[in-house]
């Protein structure tokens, strides 16, 4: 499989949502999609220049969402039609499992299962353009927090808690990852970051970040975390 596979996994997820209304609502909607997924884990893999090879043909990944109906629909889809199109071949879903969520507290440590993207808008030559921000820029944290609160408010119809959210990465754990996502015949490159970090804030916000993903473009496979 190619190194840039986010769009492939994303397509699998959309295709496997059994509830058609929900699928079209997610796909067509312009707002947040409220789910995220991890990078692929390939236990027996071999890396080549342009692709990765799973020697035994097995791989797995995690999906997470605060939307229970979506998860339910996905599981239903995978069990109903375990055979899925994958690139030009076909793979079978062997099994689906649920993960026990952690106990959410004000202070937690996480590590990313898929890298985090945070963007900002900058003016260049009189035109507003989007830029990926890196964790050395304070804007990274400000926008990460704003994004999480916005997502929470949209999903729950409002947020009445403390918006304070402090994210402290372990500097040595930060790894940049460049990911290409094809979009309408063009190729868009994103600078995303894997990291371990400590987060402090309202446990509701932290839980929502765990379910939905931190940062932006969650539904394209960015920002998924697990307790570290």
């Amino acid at each position, binding site marked *: 499989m190619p190194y840039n596979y986010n769009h492939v996994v994303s397509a699998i997820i959309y295709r496997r949502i059994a509830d058609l209304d929900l699928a079209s609502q997610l796909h067509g909607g312009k707002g947040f999609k409220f789910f995220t997924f991890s990078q692929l884990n390939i236990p027996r893999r071999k890396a080549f220049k342009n692709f990765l090879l799973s020697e035994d043909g097995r791989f797995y990944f995690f999906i997470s969402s605060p939307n229970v109906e979506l998860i339910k629909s996905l599981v239903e889809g995978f069990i*109903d039609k375990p055979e899925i199109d994958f690139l030009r071949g076909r793979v079978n879903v062997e099994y689906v499992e*649920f993960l026990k969520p952690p106990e959410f507290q004000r202070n937690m440590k996480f590590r990313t299962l898929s890298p985090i993207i945070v963007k900002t808008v900058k003016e260049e030559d009189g035109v507003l353009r989007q830029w990926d921000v890196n964790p050395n820029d304070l804007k990274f944290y400000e926008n990460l927090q704003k994004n999480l609160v916005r997502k929470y408010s949209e999903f729950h119809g409002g947020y009445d808690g403390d918006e304070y959210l402090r994210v402290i990465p372990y500097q040595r754990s930060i790894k940049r990852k460049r990911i290409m996502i094809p979009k309408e015949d063009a190729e868009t490159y994103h600078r995303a970051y894997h990291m371990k970090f400590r987060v402090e804030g309202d446990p509701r916000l932290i839980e929502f970040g765990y379910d939905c993903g931190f940062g932006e473009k969650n539904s394209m496979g960015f920002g998924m975390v697990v307790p570290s």
Partner: protein
Amino acid sequence: MNFEFKEESGLEFTGNWFIDSGVLGFVRLLEDIYGIELQEIREIARRKEILYFGLFPFAYICSEINRKATAHSRVPKDLINEFRFELLNSDWESGEEIFEFTWNNYVTRAAMKVWVERKLESVLFKKNGVDELPSDLKDSVTSIKKDADELEKKLVEKHADDLNKILGHRSKRFKSDDIAKILSVTDDDLREFPEDLSYSFKEYRDCLLNLMGLFEEKWKRDVVGKERVPEALDLFYRLPIDNKFYKNFLFFQYSAAHQKQKESLLDIISFRVEDLEVLKKVDKTINKFLTSYKKAENTYYAPLTSRHLKSFSEYLFVYLISFDRAFEFFNRMGYVLFYSNDLDITYRVNRKLRIRKSKIEDQSVLLRVTWQEIIDSLIELKSEWALENMYIIKYRDVNSQTQRFVDVEYIGISKMHAAILLDDVIRENINHTLQVGKSEYVWLLEHLIQNKPLKPVVMRHLVMRASGRTGQMSIKPLIYALAIDSEVFSGLKACVFEDPLEISPRMEEVVFRIKEAYGEMNTARRNVTELIPRGTRENTLNHLMSILRRNNRYLFVNTLLKILMQENEAFHRLKNYLFNRILQNDETWDIYAAALLTGFLGGR
């Protein structure tokens, strides 16, 4: 609530357990003597004077007589019936008139034989027995006693072995207990013994009968039908009644002569607070737990003055002296009383305990029988309001010196439990005993009433079923038990006070919700049984049970999902149950999971 205020008769509980025990004792006393039940007593109680001044004193004296009477001196049933008939079918002007009639004509007749027996004992076995007799009896009694003594000596010396067969002991003299035995020996019985013994024995028996005849004649002449006994013989004619519980109280005192006994009983019934010192207070003369007025050493309750209680209960002392009658003696447990604040339930439950007395040998059986009757009463009387305050009260002894509580056990049922039990379908379905060990069984209903969760019982039973160690097959009781658990033990808030307006709708709702939960669990259970192949079910059951015991929700769901990935139809039918009732249900997921396990067992 279905309670109706029943009483014009006034025969109801007061809310004070001590007085209420007396009310129950009063009812049981009348039931014992006249064979009438609570409802009939209530009917009669509309004519209060007849009940309290007639039926009560006669029954009370009869029961005191019968308590220690021999077969010969027990109050004859015919006399009791005759009294009851005459009392109920005559017109009376006042309570005092009824009491006079009762005492003079019937109490005296009822007490005659026991009095005669005591006098006979006194003459035969007491050193100065003859000296205490009135002069008109002395000569004739002395003469007969002399003959009797000679005969006794002869019998004991010559026929010790044969007497041993008749009396059951060897002794140099007869004992007071022997009198009843001697009187009960018939001529036929004596045929197997030597003629010499037979002749002397008959002669001795005739002596006894002659003495008794003399006493009977004297009693009839001076006492029966008389308003007063001769003043000089007042103590001689004392009714030989004694009650350990009220040893020092009025007519039980040994110094109380016949007339005093009569007056004291009337004082108690008419509750003449002003006239009689002892009735001015309710103190430890009645019960050890009350205050002693002389030395206020053992003050357990506040001092109670009768004046205050008079308006509270018109016949207070009638009930108080009936207190000990409420208790039933059980082997190994002592004196036991089931008490609730409803007379009907208390009466019925205690009656049932009494009927089953021979089978009740320990606390567990006592509770089981009690619960069965409580539930029957609950259904019939619908007095669920009474069920919140129920107690088992145990005394070690009802002796005046050692009135000691062994235990007071609170066994109240909450409103919610009562509401659940009142539903016929639910009750019938959990009125089951489940095998949970080799020889261990649990009655689901009892467990519920005791507010214990039912799921552990169901789980233990499932283990038995899974390993084929029980022949029990039914599924419905298991599902109902789990459905109840899911509602009773979910959403319990630790609030001390609850808005009364919210209680009632919640009670009604709980039954509905239990049935809904049952429906959902049962459908899921059937889907498992019908859509997952038997082999798969049998292979997975133990593993799932073990996961459930370890309380690992996610492993349970994931293991189930692995099975369901092979059984598409089953997955579709169960997916909502899995998500809503197990995965997203933090509080009661284990109960819903246990319901699924019953499906893995199969059966109906």
